[in-house]
């Protein structure tokens, strides 16, 4: 038996020969180069669109009063940042100069908005995944909830805005509620479809060794649906960034949505574009964070992007 086993080993065991590292790693130099190339292309891409805009401004097509080019709305950074000092604007009898410095105010604004996005994201995924799993786990629960959830899922989050205000007044709560409501239904439906897509063999393996329904859900189905759900979460995160601005225009005190409202009311296109650029960067950074989380939690999911690049 031993000799036979070795013979088998030699055949398709060449992957294990020697002490090659478990996961093939690129040398540091190559990784740095690929990172630099990614950053480089990002700069080139943004540079190209900014360049076109600047040229349009130069030849007089883009009116700087309506479509101020990047060097205008990013250039006077210090002036722009002053508008973010809305932290105490609504209070009567407060010296407008007494608030936080402009840079601090910018950070507070960004922090507040990002905090709402992530709080909403967290609550929506926890709720959505729980409800989705319960729908498949308990048949009666599905019968009771799924029709309503399917009915409500196409409703635009904007329609929920008055409800958010009725329920929570103003402040953080309605903004977070809006993010949650925008993502919740999608997360539920995505969870259900992910569960339905789990490889039957994996479930059957667990059934053969005598796993209970609870064990199958906990040990097989939940880990199997995580990769797909994190992808759904990443896509929905952009939705969260969109919704949070709408929610913030209703008067939460401070936040990027509030600043855009201010820009609109004071006819300040420079500030609008400044905020748009800021939100773009924030969305990019938060997607990057989620990607890192994805890689950490889902260490077993292979990266498939390389296949397409080979085409």
């Amino acid at each position, binding site marked *: *038996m031993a000799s*036979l*086993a*070795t*013979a*088998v*080993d030699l*055949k*398709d*065991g060449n*992957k*294990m020969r020697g002490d090659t590292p*478990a*996961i093939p790693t690129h040398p540091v130099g190559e990784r740095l180069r690929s990172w630099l190339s990614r950053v480089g292309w990002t700069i080139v891409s943004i540079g190209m669109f900014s360049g076109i805009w600047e040229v349009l401004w130069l030849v007089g097509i883009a009116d700087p009063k309506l479509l101020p080019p990047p060097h205008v709305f990013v250039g006077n950074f210090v002036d722009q940042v002053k508008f973010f000092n809305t932290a105490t604007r609504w209070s009567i009898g407060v010296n407008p100069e007494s608030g936080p410095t402009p840079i601090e105010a910018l950070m507070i604004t960004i922090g507040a908005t990002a905090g709402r996005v992530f709080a909403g994201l967290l609550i929506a995924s926890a709720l959505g995944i729980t409800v989705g799993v319960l729908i498949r786990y308990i048949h009666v629960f599905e019968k009771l909830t799924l029709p309503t959830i399917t009915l409500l899922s196409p409703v635009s989050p904007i329609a929920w805005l008055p409800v958010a205000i009725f329920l929570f007044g103003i402040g953080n709560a309605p903004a977070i509620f809006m993010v949650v409501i925008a993502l919740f239904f999608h997360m539920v439906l995505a969870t259900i479809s992910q569960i339905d897509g789990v*490889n039957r*063999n*994996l479930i*059957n*393996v*667990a*059934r*053969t*060794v*005598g*796993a209970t329904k609870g*064990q199958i859900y906990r*040990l*097989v189905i939940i*880990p199997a649906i995580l990769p797909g759900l994190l992808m759904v979460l990443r896509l929905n995160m952009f939705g969260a960034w969109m919704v949070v601005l709408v929610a913030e225009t209703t008067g939460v005190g401070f936040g990027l949505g509030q600043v855009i409202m201010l820009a609109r009311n004071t006819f300040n296109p420079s500030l609008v574009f400044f905020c748009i650029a800021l939100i773009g960067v924030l969305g990019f950074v938060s997607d990057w964070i989620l990607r890192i989380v994805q890689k950490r939690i*889902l*260490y*077993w*999911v*292979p990266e498939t992007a390389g296949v397409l690049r080979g085409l």
Partner: protein
Amino acid sequence: MAYDGKSPPPGNAVSCRGVSKIWSAGTVRAHEALREIDLDIGPGEFVALLGPSGCGKSTLLYLIAGLEAVTAGELWSFGQRLLAPSPERSLIFQETSLFPWLTVWQNVSFGLAIRGTPVEQRRAVAKEALQRVGLSAAFDKRPDELSGGMRQRVAVARALAMQPKVLLMDEPFAALDVQTRQRMQDFLIDVWRSSGASVLFVTHHIDEAVALSDRVVVFTARPGRIKTIVPIDMDRPRNLFSTECEKLRMELTAHLKDEVERAFAEQEAFAVTP
């Protein structure tokens, strides 16, 4: 040959009595997969199920595994009615069925984890089972680091870790290349001998059935019925180029040919009249 109501001999690893299976019974999509199967598998016997694709041989395996319920008839194993899945009957699938998020040893000892076996004991069992399939070195690896053949051996190790009395194999080597497949057949004979378990092996490969089994059960095209059972009384490893094997191959080919043609004719008729 309908079910006669008497219980089969308790020594049989698996006994099928008048087993029929209709998928989606009672709906418009209903189709009959198996009709009145009577089959006895002795303890330690190696039986191949051979038939055209779609003849229900895999269905029979799923029924014996307890993963699906029979429409009619009874299934027995060692004197007990067979009604639910059991670790005594391990099913090995055609495609990879390893949990990609677990390491090889965690995969192998998954069944023990379900029972709440302490981790040290699980590691020991996994180590032993991996030794038996010649993959000790893969202990801490993850499934995606292994080749297709190695993954199937891990799946076999996982089955062995539960000390099964019956190994059910659903075309386990179909996705492998020819050379690997031959090695895996040698390997399987080796595992079968050392474990003492009965093996029920689904294949549509005549050579594979001839090389491995004590008996070949030939199925008819849909609905699957047992057309004939061909015993093979030859020592292993078998020389597939010997005259006896050649004769067997021709016999089995002849049995299969009618059925494959019938299956084709049926499919064509189905395609014309929707």
